[in-house]
């Protein structure tokens, strides 16, 4: 079981002042799975994601990603190991075009000062290869005709699509989606679900935090339930629906 775990969160705690946001919680995410993380408001889901991605420092416990400990690393260091996350609020770069947004994500030789200044021939070739990749991804996500539009002009749902497409440019091994469906409706939800399933089939691991339980049902084999900072239950959705304590947490 632990041999094919890609992410292990062991006994993590985090308090803000007197509020115990996460209280000795542990998660294990299997490689190649889509795992859900649900729970009522204030359950500590977002704090958990922030600890995983390095945006919040937990006071206790450890995080192990792909066999290496990432506890206490800065967010950009975690990201470089292949764990990319998205945010509850869409976080596009509004005054840059979609293609520019996409090209920020991959690591490029041209972002090194010396190369940028004096070795255009070195980074230009790489740039065009990445450009090709970015265009294909935009086509896949149905955003290609907006490629030269400013990202700030997109609709809420399109920004979500762009964010996931941009994360894919960074070649992640695992994506953590913090409420990807927030502010997205109808057809776009179906599109996003299809994309996530498709990407998962190609080997990407997902951790999805979501309030829309129907979406969780369609996406995830197994789901963690958090309440008041602790992990309450783990299992497939149909089992959780019969779990007394889970129902209680949601009713409270």
């Amino acid at each position, binding site marked *: 079981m632990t041999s094919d775990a890609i992410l292990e969160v062991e006994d993590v705690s985090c308090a803000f002042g007197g509020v115990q946001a996460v209280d000795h919680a542990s998660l294990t995410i299997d490689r190649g799975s889509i795992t859900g993380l649900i729970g009522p408001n204030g359950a500590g889901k977002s704090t958990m994601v922030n600890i995983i991605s390095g945006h919040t420092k937990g006071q206790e416990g450890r995080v192990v990603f792909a066999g290496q400990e990432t506890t206490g690393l800065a967010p950009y*260091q975690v990201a470089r190991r292949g764990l990319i996350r998205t945010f509850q609020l869409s976080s596009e770069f509004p005054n840059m075009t979609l293609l520019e947004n996409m090209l920020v994500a991959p690591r490029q030789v041209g972002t090194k000062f010396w190369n940028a200044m004096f070795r255009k021939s070195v980074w230009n070739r790489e740039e065009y290869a990445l450009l090709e990749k970015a265009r294909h991804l935009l086509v896949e996500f149905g955003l290609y005709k907006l490629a030269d539009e400013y990202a700030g002009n997109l609709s809420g749902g399109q920004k979500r699509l762009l964010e996931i497409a941009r994360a894919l440019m*960074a070649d992640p091994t695992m994506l953590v989606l913090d409420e990807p469906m927030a502010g997205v409706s109808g057809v776009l939800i179906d599109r996003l679900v299809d994309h996530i399933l*498709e990407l998962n089939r190609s080997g990407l691991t997902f951790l999805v935090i979501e309030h829309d339980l129907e979406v969780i049902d369609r996406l995830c084999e197994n789901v963690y339930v958090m309440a008041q900072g602790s992990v309450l239950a783990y299992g497939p959705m149909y089992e959780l629906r019969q779990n007394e304590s889970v129902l209680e947490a949601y009713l409270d």
Partner: protein
Amino acid sequence: MTSFLITMGIYFFIDLILVLSANLQLGLMGMANLGFVLFLGIGAYAATIFSIGPEPANSLQQYFFGVALPFPLPIILAIICGMIGGLLVGLVSLYRMRGHYLAIITLAILTICSTLVEGYPRFLGGSNGLTGIVQPLSSLTSSYNGYQLIFLGLSGVLCLAVFIFCQRFIHSPLGRMAKAVRENETAVTTLGINPFRVRLLATVCGGGMAALSGALLAEYVTAWGIAPWSFTEIFPATAAMIIGGRGNNWGVALGTFMTYVVVGQGLPFLPGVSSNPELGYAIQWIIYGVALVAFLWFRPSGLLPEQKGRWKHAPEFVPATMSSASDLPAAPSVAEQVAEEGAHSHDQ
């Protein structure tokens, strides 16, 4: 008249270097680093100290150190001092400060430095300043007009070099990364980018550029002191950048021309102003203020707004897209997109 135009050209080049430095930090990266005037002063003092020679025994001028180094060295050392200054200020302030906190702390550092120089005259001449700065390449010619041309060439070449530097910086993957840091710092960290490194890099480069501008200014005027080293200098530079266009080097050049040359140097030609320099000065500040407010209100991106990144289409792109996208379930409008893109791909 020719001599006047040459002087104007020299000031244009010197000021443009300063505004480009401000643009790299404020325009491209959105860092409210007002310290570029600090680095201007560092550069000017460094160029002075490294060219003026040792302190004469019985002179009214007081300063420490003082060597007479040959031509390119004072300027190079000034740039290095500016970069070191940028590095130190960046390390102190950038790690935690953003927005107006950064603006306040950089202003505070500027004030501390100028107060220090003023209050301790033995250090860098205090409020009397330093005069008699040796002009670079002045041994080449003895005529005034000849030297004016030489300095025009020198400042022009250096300004061009800085301009090319900024163009390469902004239009590279590094510049794109810097822009992204401005747009959303948190999002950038989740893509494996360390925003602190990018900010520090911009501050160091900006420090060096502002110091170069200061060095040229001091060497051209042959005097430097705390009077021209005031935080009011922030204002015209920022106005030039905003009027011209933040993040666009050509816009910055246009803005510098409008503010420093047209308004700054053109006003004395107005009837009534030439006999009353105080009036000209007052009108100049009113124009800067009104123009700044008007631009921020009606055209915040400036005369020449920041350019979108554009790339040529790879010729084999469209067919490749068709074949690879046809088996994807969740792209309902691929054919449409490609067709539409094909229709107007010629104008790119």
